[in-house]
């Protein structure tokens, strides 16, 4: 599997996702600069986390209009898998590859900690390494991760099985009431942590699976996402 990682001024997790991909593929991904107008031939494109353009205007808004994102959109339209993590998710919503938007966290704080996620759908190249219902433990680190969409979009996401991951309690139950604050860290509608596009070749998620791949660092639940991608894409 050949992967390309898009780099913007202000990205900061590109090295982490490149390490994770190298760990499972044995091959270092190609880094693509935001001004590039051509993408290398790649089986997977990753838009990594960080603070592209300093989060000016809105998180992801400036990056969404950069030259390289036109190419990323064209590749996604051709069916190339595109994975947006954290700021990458924000960029994918801003450029229209995914519906909805990511608002400031409900409690206004930057959150950096481990969370539990329930895998809602394993029917995609990104989630096939899991079984629907699996509960995984991965970190989040963001200020604007509060997913929102209009009622019609939310119904469509639910109805078509496009919710990939939800924040949950350690036992996998959706966090409600007082529990919600503890387990849904940013106040996301429907506890949504990650969504797929209709064609299921684009995934955006706020948590960082790339930071839970190495047993030396204590957590490996993110690794199955990358192993699943390798199994699907060769």
């Amino acid at each position, binding site marked *: 599997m050949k992967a390309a990682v898009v780099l913007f001024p202000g990205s900061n997790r590109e090295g982490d996702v490149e390490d994770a991909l190298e760990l499972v593929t044995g091959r270092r991904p190609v880094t693509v600069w935001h001004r590039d107008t051509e993408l290398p031939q790649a089986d997977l494109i990753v838009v990594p986390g960080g603070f592209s353009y300093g989060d000016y205007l*809105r998180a992801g*808004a400036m990056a969404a209009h950069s030259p390289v994102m036109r190419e990323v959109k064209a590749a996604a339209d051709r069916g190339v898998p595109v994975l947006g993590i954290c700021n990458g998710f924000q960029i994918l919503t*801003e450029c229209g590859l995914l519906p909805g938007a990511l*608002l400031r966290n409900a409690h206004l704080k930057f959150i950096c900690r481990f969370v539990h996620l329930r895998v809602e759908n394993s029917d995609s190249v990104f989630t096939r390494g899991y079984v629907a219902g699996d509960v995984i433990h991965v970190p989040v680190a963001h200020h604007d991760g509060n997913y*929102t*969409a209009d009622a019609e979009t939310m119904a469509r996401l639910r109805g078509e099985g496009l919710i990939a991951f939800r924040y949950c309690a350690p036992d996998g139950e959706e966090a409600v009431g007082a529990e919600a604050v503890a387990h849904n860290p940013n106040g996301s509608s429907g506890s949504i942590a990650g969504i797929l596009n209709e064609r299921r070749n684009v995934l955006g998620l706020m948590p960082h699976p790339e930071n839970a791949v190495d047993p030396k660092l204590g957590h490996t639940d993110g690794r199955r996402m990358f192993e699943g991608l390798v199994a699907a894409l060769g």
Partner: protein
Amino acid sequence: MKARVHVTLKRAVLDPQGQAIGRALASLGFDGVRDVRQGKVIEIDLADTDREAAEERVRAMCDRLLANPVIEDYTVEMVG
């Protein structure tokens, strides 16, 4: 010619920053503050001379970049 764009979260979207400001105002003793919405102001200096055409262009700027239609509303005010 100058344009002033006001961008605010849509009414249907929860504005936790506005709420925090409201609580802070109440704690300072300002009674009767019913609601606070926070937004941003963007001032644009344009070379245009035709006011109507300039406003049209600023609206296009809002639709394409300055506001996110999923969560935000905007108003355009032509000044000076």
